[in-house]
């Protein structure tokens, strides 16, 4: 029975491909926009995930996301160290700086100041230089994209100098960082140096990074830190989600991308639904013949659903494939574009395609079920 449905479906090639095109188009829109949305969301938390050594981030209780900088007491790290279950705790400065270039121009940068003694929190993926070079006077590390942004016409090399807050800084290393939401150059230096690169405030400590003792759960230790210090303490994963949630709730990004995803869904429904309905209408006589010959409504419904599933699957595979290819191409041509395709996006697109083909087939099913088999004699 299903082979009849399949042959009926593929018998009219133009209609068959038109239905698949509708679903593919919808699928590309939904996948592409969702993946770009995920990419942007992931970027909002990229600075958190670039810190590899720490399990727990400790901060001002009012901090809502990574860029919501509210300083804490300079001795907070000492209080954190005293909490049972904490193996070590170090300072982390994060703030915005103004770098003056050799030509006199200013460039906003994201500045990290890591613990002077241990250099915990330093970037891992160095393309040039060594982490240890940060111990040299005036030393800073810059991310690759930031270097190219500040010196677009020069190849990557060390020794470039900039000024921040009237103090000299020398590039001693270049690292590969995850793309950030703000796309500003990222500089790493020692904590003591960072506090000199920006105007002085009464409190300069942004975060305390802590590591759990072996066998301790980060969630439990984070709760313990909060209870003993009254500071906010979260795991790296929790902080990432906190940051992403902030952007989700307080920016228009989800609405903008959501609108396009919805449009893709509606357009897909319209194209696929209309073409599939037309396909059924044009085959009404064939369905009527099958009904006259004794095929039950239930089997005809199953045939139509099967046809819908086939075009849905084909459209889904083509759409996801095209969207992935397009995303990869986009990132090759313009690396600044965000594209992140987790399995959840694939599942969401799959569900959307299922809904599209189900809605499309409902119209057709209704038309065929009410069809009188006697129409074949007319």
């Amino acid at each position, binding site marked *: 029975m299903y082979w009849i449905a399949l042959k009926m479906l593929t018998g009219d090639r133009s209609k068959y491909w038109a239905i698949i095109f509708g679903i593919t188009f919808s699928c590309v829109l939904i996948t592409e926009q969702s993946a770009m949305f995920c990419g942007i969301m992931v970027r909002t938390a990229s600075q958190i995930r670039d810190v590899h050594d720490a399990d727990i981030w400790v901060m001002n209780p009012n901090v809502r996301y990574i860029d919501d900088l509210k300083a804490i007491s300079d001795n907070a790290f000492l209080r954190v160290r005293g909490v049972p279950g904490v193996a070590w705790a170090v300072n982390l400065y994060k703030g915005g700086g103004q770098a003056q270039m050799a030509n006199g121009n200013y460039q906003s940068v994201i500045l990290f100041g890591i613990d002077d003694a241990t250099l915990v929190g330093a970037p891992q993926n160095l393309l040039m230089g060594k982490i240890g070079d940060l111990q040299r006077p005036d030393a800073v590390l810059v991310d690759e994209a930031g270097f190219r942004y500040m010196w677009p016409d020069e190849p990557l090399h060390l020794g470039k100098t900039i000024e921040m807050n009237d103090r000299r800084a020398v590039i001693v290393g270049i690292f590969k960082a995850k793309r950030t939401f703000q796309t500003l150059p990222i500089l790493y230096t020692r904590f003591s140096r960072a506090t000199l690169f920006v105007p002085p405030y009464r409190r300069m400590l942004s975060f305390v990074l802590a590591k759990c003792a072996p066998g301790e759960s980060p969630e439990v230790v984070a709760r313990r830190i909060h209870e003993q210090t009254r500071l906010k303490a979260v795991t790296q994963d929790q902080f990432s989600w906190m940051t992403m949630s902030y952007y989700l709730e307080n920016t228009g990004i989800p609405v903008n991308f959501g609108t396009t995803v919805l449009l893709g869904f509606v357009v897909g429904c319209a194209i696929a639904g209309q073409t599939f309905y037309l396909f059924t209408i044009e085959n009404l006589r064939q369905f009527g013949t099958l009904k006259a010959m*004794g095929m039950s409504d239930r089997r005809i419904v199953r045939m139509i659903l099967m046809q819908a599933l086939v075009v849905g699957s084909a459209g889904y595979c083509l759409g996801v494939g095209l969207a992935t290819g397009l995303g990869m191409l986009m990132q090759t041509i313009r690396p600044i574009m965000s594209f992140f395709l987790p399995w959840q996006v694939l599942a969401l697109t799959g569900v959307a395609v299922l809904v599209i083909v189900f809605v499309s087939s409902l119209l057709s099913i209704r038309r065929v079920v009410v069809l009188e088999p006697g129409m074949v004699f007319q």
Partner: protein
Amino acid sequence: MMTDGAARPGIHCRDVTKDYGTGDARIRALRGVTVDIHPGELTLLVGPSGCGKTTLISILAGTLDPTSGDVEVLGVPLPRLSKSAKSEFRANNVGFVFQQFNLLPALTASENVSVPLVIRGSSKAAATQRAAPLLQSVGLGDRLDARPANLSGGQQQRVAIARALVHEPHLLVCDEPTSAVDARTGQVVMKLIRELALSPDRVAVVVTHDSRVFSFADRIITLEDGRVADDQRVQPQI
């Protein structure tokens, strides 16, 4: 589902009426048709356009319900059956030959012939295997894999005849089987229906207005204005 055809008439209609529409727009297509049609003979339903031939054959085939009257086909009171039971009855007992052939264009000749068997639950392989000899018997043994678009009108109607008979139905209904083919092919089609379709336990009803095929009939029932105007038993000229 079939009862003893020898003891009872194959088709038994009493005072059958059929109305289309309601109120002022109501049209009465059948006005008390009473007729018995027996197995083993070729019965033609003839008459002018709009006389109710198609309505009557639709009721006899179980694809349409009468407004009133009794209809018993192969011992089964069709109008009293549920929709699904009627579908099952048609699948098991009725073979159809349509005016426009109604072959599925995406299927080959042998696949088209196998459709009634597939509807009854056969696998594709088994069904197409049974279709092949039947297509040979209608002279299309070398066109098993041809699609309808690559067959002439006469060849398509022969495929339709094979499809109507492949599941060995007890009732064969043919709606204007010769109107879409030329005169010579029409004779071939009627000859095939007579040769292949007639059997002692099969009721064969053909609706036609083509007087050139009257010579194939055992009985000619003439309808006029929704009533049986004439009912003649004739000697086939074949």
